[in-house]
């Protein structure tokens, strides 16, 4: 018979268990630590990739201040010194809008990864109205019609996968993913049709979003209002309650007489409509459209929604965080003279790995072999 302490070596090295609950402060501590680790790792990667940084290691300071400078630094243009901040807020707002649009679907466990396409198609709808009616009718009417068309187009794009999911259980993740590309090529096709000799970018003279004090505020206010409305909708409305029940268990929903099909279709209509609304904001902001106008924000928004655990209020913070990272990473590649288009992706990707991975330490407890043994000895 062998002595217990020798056998301890044969026990699993690491043993996991699910946490029954964790103090919110501790959870946020873990998340901040992950963010810090991610930033340090990014610094190391930058060191490897940038010759400029290697030759002058002091530049590393610039690396870390870049995140602040990119979003909150003072611009050089005297007339608009806060441009960077407004810009940051505006694009956070747009990202937030898409994430909020996804939220009801995700709460229902309907994995809509088609926000990219739904937003683009909304933008296309708005652009179509602008193309055919721009300059021919009053600007205010044009904007209203653009909004209407965008919301309608987004709703159609969102509800198609929902109809098939409701009727035949067609896998929505893959369906919505494919719809993104259909939307992209449909946009490319129409742009070419409208402007056969063009470069693929269709610009408009009309259909500009009205300024509210400045050009940024309207979008920001819309997004915050949307976040509040979404929070109330999910927490206090009957629809929100039904969404939660369906998401948790379709059988429970049927059992209490909720029509699962109806809820799936209704929720995806809403999700698509909100994406369409965001598409309208893009159209009115850019006053042009290309097949890449959304630029992957529909995918980034999925990450934002997930990071916020589908809570609309937390989402405001997460959208800002992701944008802060993106803008900072862009600034870094400028400062450190590394590949401009690529570096932001690498930095954002790496930091996301850390934030995504850290959820593990929030949900699970890790026990190491050594500790159990000590406890055993203490008992003796």
């Amino acid at each position: 018979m062998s002595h217990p302490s020798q056998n301890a070596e044969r026990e699993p090295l690491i043993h996991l268990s699910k946490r029954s609950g964790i103090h919110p402060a501790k959870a946020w501590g873990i998340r901040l630590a992950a963010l810090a680790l991610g930033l340090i790792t990014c610094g190391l990667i930058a060191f490897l990739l940038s010759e400029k940084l290697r030759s002058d290691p002091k530049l590393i300071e610039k690396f870390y201040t870049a995140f602040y400078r990119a979003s909150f630094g003072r611009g050089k243009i005297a007339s608009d010194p806060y441009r960077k901040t407004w810009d940051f807020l505006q694009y956070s707002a747009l990202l937030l809008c898409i994430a909020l649009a996804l939220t009801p679907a995700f709460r229902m466990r309907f994995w809509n990864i088609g926000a990219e396409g739904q937003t683009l198609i909304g933008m296309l709808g708005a652009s179509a109205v602008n193309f055919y009616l721009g300059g021919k009718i009053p600007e205010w009417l044009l904007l209203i019609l653009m909004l209407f068309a965008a919301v309608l187009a987004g709703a159609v794009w969102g509800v198609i996968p929902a109809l098939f999911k409701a009727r035949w259980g067609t896998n929505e993740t893959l369906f919505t993913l494919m719809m993104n590309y259909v939307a992209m090529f449909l946009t490319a096709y129409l742009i070419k049709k409208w402007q056969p000799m063009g470069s693929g970018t269709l610009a408009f003279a009309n259909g500009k979003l009205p300024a509210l004090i400045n050009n940024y505020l309207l979008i920001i206010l819309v997004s915050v209002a949307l976040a509040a409305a979404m929070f109330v909708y999910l927490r206090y409305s009957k629809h929100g309650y039904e969404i939660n029940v369906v998401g948790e268990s379709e059988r429970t929903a049927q059992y209490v007489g909720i029509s699962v099909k109806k809820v799936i279709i209704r929720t995806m209509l809403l999700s698509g409509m909100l994406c369409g609304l965001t598409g309208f904001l893009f159209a009115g902001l850019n006053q042009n459209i290309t097949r890449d106008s959304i630029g992957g924000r529909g995918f980034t928004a999925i990450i934002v929604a997930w990071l916020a655990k589908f809570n609309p209020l937390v989402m405001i913070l997460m959208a800002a965080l992701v944008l802060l990272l993106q803008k900072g990473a862009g600034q870094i590649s400028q400062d450190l003279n590394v590949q401009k288009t690529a570096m932001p992706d690498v930095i954002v990707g790496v930091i996301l790995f850390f934030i995504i991975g850290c959820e593990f330490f929030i949900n699970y407890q890790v026990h190491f072999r050594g500790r159990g043994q000590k406890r055993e000895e203490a008992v003796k």
Partner: protein
Amino acid sequence: MSGFMNYLVDSLAFGATFIYGSTGEILTEKAGHLNLGIPGIMCMGGAGGAWIMYLIGSSALPPFLIVLLGTLAALLFGALTGAIYSFLTITLRANQNVTGLALTIFGEGMMKVILDGSKLTNKAYLVQPVSYFHWPFAGRNDSLQLIGPLFFLAIIIAVLSSWVLMRTKVGLHLRAVGENPATADAAGINVTGYKYAATCIGSGIAGLGGFYYIVDYMGNNEAYLDIPSLGWLSIALVIFALWRPVLAIVGSTVFGFLFSLSSLIKISTATQPLMQMLPYVVTILVLIVTSIRNKRENQPPSSLGLSYFREDR
């Protein structure tokens, strides 16, 4: 050779990119992991392979060895990128969709950093492996010459994967892991090991797809920009192929066919985007038809997208 034959061969050659990508994704999905990072992984594989070819391409090594080293590098880069995904989703049990999307962002950026940032302006690294293996009977400029060793490697990998999945114990175990990990675990199968192996090997194979496209099929240094969209198509193809690598060969050819249809029938450039849309529309149709027919054998692996934790109660 006739124009049509040229076109057909081109479809086959182009389709090989998808064979790599979708076979890799099938292996991953069979282990229960929906890897939306495949586009990023294909980018990394392509970048890694091309980079090595660039480093050794003008050396005195025999061409065969250069190609082999490039291929191995692509495999390794793909597998290593897959390892990031594996660690996050298998060990840390992170959400698969979100991790995959983040990986795609990362992979795309990293590819550009490697290929663009390291100033690969000349084509020195683009030694087309195919140019060392000529068909004796075809003319020098025949499109048949497009089909080279890497094309056949794709076919071999797909057929081999099908055989392993359906005819061997390892395949049986892997399918069990993807269908019902708790059962596989209780049967004494190393679930984590299988998941890691399938995901990393699958990613390595997908990485080859990126390498094949840049170096062999296209053979120019702008080609890498297309890879992300080819990656998404590869994921689509998995559905089209009903999770069977052999069917992925057929599907890949069809996709290749659809993709370059516009160049064959000489339609106006205006309708070209509609042609490019076709593969996605066809995939959606397949998805709908299989869900309506609802045959159990044609459904995605049951535990696809779900993390496994043994002590879940």
